[in-house]
């Protein structure tokens, strides 16, 4: 019996090749897209889960509030890790990571710049699951000047992974003994390093200071339930260890500090939440956001829905053509159950083929998708464990739903009715089908609007006036490599023709160099009158080189010896302090045992127009700039038609001063773009998926229009015999669908406007308003696509010979 069903199904599909192709392709495309998105989402959700102890690992975050300033840190005090382990028996272990910045690693005669370098405590391998290929995990990081490297780094520098005991020279002068080689840190890790330097190498790691935070600190608890207990004990812990230091430095007790409205508190974040939910000061790398997970999941569901609705719509549309077959089968003795089984088998068969095709399509598209998303997704044995059952389930489910209409509806009729073809009459009458078309098109229009909004927002970010000029700025990184000659380098570069100006500092709007400090309005260091800004060290050429504008006062100047105690505020800082003029005074503690005796007095020399230095998702915070030598980078404003020549001149100057260390340079606009790469990628993915969704929806509409025309062949013939023109008939056939598209526009537009405002744009401090033309454009686009799709079929039906169409009955 089954054989007979499959045979009939197969031949029927073969007979209607166009329909079959549309139906299977649409579903396959939808399923493939959905599969890719699911892979992406699962990848995002799987961060840090490679750690076998992930459920027991937490990172300690810190919340600081100082007067009206507040900051959240992903880093904590230097002695916290060892204290937690010593004080609380349920803390099984603790480990600190400290980003070590960029290092030059010697290979042969050259020095290669490596950015993925970190200091780590010896307990690293006990807390995190980083399998060691050779070396002893428990002692590898115990001694100073030891380094554990990844497989990739080992191969890069030694062409081998058996390198324990060998030596790596860092920064041209410091030897490190390789004490272990680990497998590469999984991509799905919130930190990703190739060089783990032993923490004892870094003297500061032994610091006992409780009033500063710069170590990413992780705890491994004996049980996940201990997290609450540990969090509850933090206030007590802080009081015990930092109380004395606060008294000495700030001249107040913790209680008094809290009473003044300020606080510093600690809390725990589960390791597996970090990637998607944490974007604090001092993260070890850029994290993702749940926002995109939601958006992508929604798109995946949308696309799946559109594809399924298509499939059902087309299947049921076609099934009415099969009423006669149902009748014949009934007459020949088939009972209802057998007919239901037949239609379901057929439908599931088709979905199964589509699913198979979807899987193959996804396999082929994966490399492209990876390129687009910047991920390294793969379909491997582990993912097959869920993909195969999920796809089987979907094909069964969609097949069953799509087949259920003909199965239950057609089989219920009196055989004599179906035989006479009474069911084949009503395409227009199908409310359900109209509803489904509206549903599909609403989703498509929603996605079109979403894409336009995202595109506009990203465009806005890229063209926004940032408060500085990022074009034509060359940044030479790590000028500190030149040691005392850094200043000479700056002088000589400034003299090269084509160089307009140059400023030496690592603190740039586009760089990751960040530093904070506390400034007070009065000499008693009263928290209530404090400012907790970015504190940057710049030189006299900074404002000019970067094209910033002063709104009051002046920039630093060589001719003003008092500028060493001068300060430039940005507008935000001035606003916060209530300064709208220069000649104001700020105080800053210089540290040491007795803070109050060691306060430096600064005078405000200028206020600079606000400029963006964070992501445009965040609003501009206060910045305080002081005049000091910082050799982090040299930013050079150039104006030349022959950039390569200029570049080689700069390179030569560098080589003269430092023959062993390679120059490392970039352009400021590229750095800026890089910081929005994730956003751009997301935008591109969004556009691709939306196009696919619309394509699938159109495939469905195309098929439906074809069937509508076919169903009404006789009517079309009669109308033509009676004198209807081609355009009148095409219009008549299109009208029904166009009406549905209009209804979809009415439904989707307000929803899209609301959700894009609420979900997407809210995430940006600097954002566009959704313009009315975006909504109109989306509606017109949907209408245009629909009209093209439908009219192809309508015109085809309308120009057909009426004799032919009348013969079909």
């Amino acid at each position, binding site marked *: 019996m089954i054989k007979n069903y499959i045979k009939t199904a197969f*031949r029927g599909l073969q007979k209607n090749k166009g329909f079959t192709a549309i139906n299977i392709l649409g579903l396959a495309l939808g399923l493939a897209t959905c599969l890719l998105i699911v892979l992406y989402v699962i990848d995002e959700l799987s961060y840090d889960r490679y750690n076998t102890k992930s459920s027991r690992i937490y990172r300690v975050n810190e919340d600081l509030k100082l007067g009206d300033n507040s900051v959240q840190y992903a880093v904590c005090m230097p002695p916290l890790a060892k204290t937690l382990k010593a004080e609380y028996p349920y803390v099984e272990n603790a480990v600190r990571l400290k980003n070590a910045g960029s290092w030059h690693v010697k290979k042969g005669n050259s020095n290669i710049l490596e950015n993925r370098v970190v200091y780590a405590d010896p307990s690293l391998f006990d807390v995190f699951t980083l399998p060691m290929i050779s070396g002893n995990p428990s002692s590898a990081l115990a001694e100073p000047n030891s380094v554990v490297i990844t497989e990739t780094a080992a191969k890069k520098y030694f062409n081998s992974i058996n390198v324990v005991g060998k030596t790596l020279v860092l920064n041209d002068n410091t030897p490190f003994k390789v004490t272990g080689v680990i497998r590469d840190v999984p991509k799905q890790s919130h930190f990703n390093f190739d060089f783990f330097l032993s923490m004892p190498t870094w003297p500061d790691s032994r610091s006992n200071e409780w009033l500063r935070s710069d170590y990413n600190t992780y705890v491994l608890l004996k049980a996940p339930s201990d997290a609450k207990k540990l969090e509850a004990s933090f206030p007590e812990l802080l009081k015990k260890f930092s109380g004395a230091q606060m008294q000495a430095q700030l001249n107040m007790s913790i209680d008094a500090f809290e009473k003044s409205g300020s606080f510093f508190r600690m809390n725990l974040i589960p390791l597996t939440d970090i990637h998607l939910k944490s974007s604090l000061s001092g993260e070890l790398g850029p994290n993702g956001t749940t926002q995109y997970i939601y958006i992508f999941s929604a798109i995946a569901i949308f696309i799946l829905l559109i594809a399924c609705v298509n499939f059902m719509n087309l299947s049921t549309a076609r099934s009415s053509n099969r009423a006669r077959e149902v009748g014949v*089968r009934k007459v*020949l003795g088939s009972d*209802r159950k057998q007919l239901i089984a037949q239609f379901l088998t057929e439908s599931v068969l088709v979905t199964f083929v589509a699913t198979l095709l979807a899987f193959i399509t996804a396999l082929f598209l994966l490399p492209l998708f990876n390129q687009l998303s910047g991920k390294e997704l793969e379909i491997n044995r582990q993912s097959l464990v869920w993909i195969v059952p999920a796809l089987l389930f979907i094909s069964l489910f969609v097949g069953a739903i799509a087949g259920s209409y003909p199965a239950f509806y057609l089989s219920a009729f009196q055989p004599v009715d179906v035989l006479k073809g009474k069911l084949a009459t009503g395409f227009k009458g199908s409310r359900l089908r109209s509803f489904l078309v509206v549903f599909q098109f609403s989703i498509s229009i929603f996605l079109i609007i979403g894409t336009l909004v995202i595109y506009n927002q990203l465009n806005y970010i890229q063209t926004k006036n940032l408060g500085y000029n990022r074009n034509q700025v060359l940044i030479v990184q790590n000028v500190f490599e030149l040691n005392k000659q850094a200043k000479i380098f700056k002088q000589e570069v400034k003299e090269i023709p084509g160089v307009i100006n140059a400023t030496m500092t690592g603190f740039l709007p586009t760089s990751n160099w960040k530093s904070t400090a506390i400034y007070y309005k009065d000499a008693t260091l009263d928290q209530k009158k404090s400012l907790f800004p970015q504190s940057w060290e710049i030189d006299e050429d900074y404002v000019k080189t970067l094209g910033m504008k002063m709104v009051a006062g002046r920039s630093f100047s060589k001719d003003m010896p008092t500028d060493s105690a001068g300060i430039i505020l940005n507008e935000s800082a001035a606003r916060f302090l209530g300064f709208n003029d220069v000649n104001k005074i700020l105080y800053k503690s210089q540290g040491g045992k007795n803070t109050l005796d060691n306060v430096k007095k600064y005078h405000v020399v200028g206020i600079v127009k606000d400029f963006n230095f964070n992501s445009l998702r965040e609003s501009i915070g206060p910045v305080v700039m002081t005049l000091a030598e910082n050799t982090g980078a040299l930013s050079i404003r150039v104006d030349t038609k022959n950039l390569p020549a200029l570049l080689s001149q700069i390179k030569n100057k560098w080589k003269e001063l430092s023959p062993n260390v390679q120059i490392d340079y970039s352009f400021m606009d590229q750095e800026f773009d890089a910081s929005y790469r994730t956003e751009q990628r997301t935008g591109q993915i969004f556009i691709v998926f939306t196009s696919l969704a619309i394509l699938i929806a159109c495939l469905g509409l195309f098929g439906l229009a074809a069937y509508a025309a076919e169903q009404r062949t006789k009517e079309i013939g009669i109308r033509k015999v009676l004198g209807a023109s081609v355009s009148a008939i095409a219009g008549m056939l299109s009208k029904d669908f166009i009406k549905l598209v209009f209804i979809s526009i009415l439904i989707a537009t307000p929803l899209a406007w609301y959700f894009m405002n609420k979900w997407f744009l809210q995430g940006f401090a600097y954002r566009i308003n959704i313009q009315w033309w975006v909504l109109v454009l989306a509606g017109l686009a949907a209408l245009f696509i629909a009209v093209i799709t439908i009219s192809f079929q309508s015109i085809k039906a309308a120009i057909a010979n009426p004799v032919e169409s009348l013969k079909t009955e």
Partner: protein
Amino acid sequence: MAGMIQEAQMIKITNLEKFYRTEEVETIALNKLSIEIATGEFVAIMGPSGCGKSTLLNILGMLDDPDAGSYVFNDIEVAHFTERKRADLRKHNIGFVFQSFNLIDELTVFENVELPLIYTGVASAERVKRVEEVLDKMQIMHRRNHYPQQLSGGQQQRVAIARAVVNKPKLILADEPTGNLDSSNGNDVMELLTDLNEQGTTIIMVTHSEHDARYSHRIIRLLDGQSVMENIMV
């Protein structure tokens, strides 16, 4: 009730009524119609369009149910059978031949004829035997692997008849079996039906053709849902 008639009675309908309703009009298709048909008879039903011929045939074939009256088939009252029971009775006892053949386009000649055997649960080997037998008899064996569209009208109707008889039904219902055929092919079909009747199958045929009706034993003439005349053929 049964056994009152000398010849074995196959069908007895009494006061059969059938209405078709639309929102405004109620049409009477069968108006208290009573007919008896004996086993082995060849009966033609005639009458103008709309007289209720096809409705009667559908009810006799248990494709449709009457609104009132009684229908006894082989001593069983079937007027109010459920669809399931009717389907069961139908597939074992009745074969259908239609004016428009009603072959399934997606199946070959062989598969079309095989279909009723599949639904009655005949084993595969037995099916092949019986289908080949009946195709042979209908002289369309050479077309067994063709699809309906590849056949002439006469050939298609032969296949349809083959399909109707493959299950060895006691009754064949034919609805204008020659209506879509030329006279030569039409005569062939009528000869086939006569042969089947001579071998013992009861045949009820709806027709517009006096020529075809002459092949039957008896003509029942309907008008407005009622039997107005019966001619016994000699």
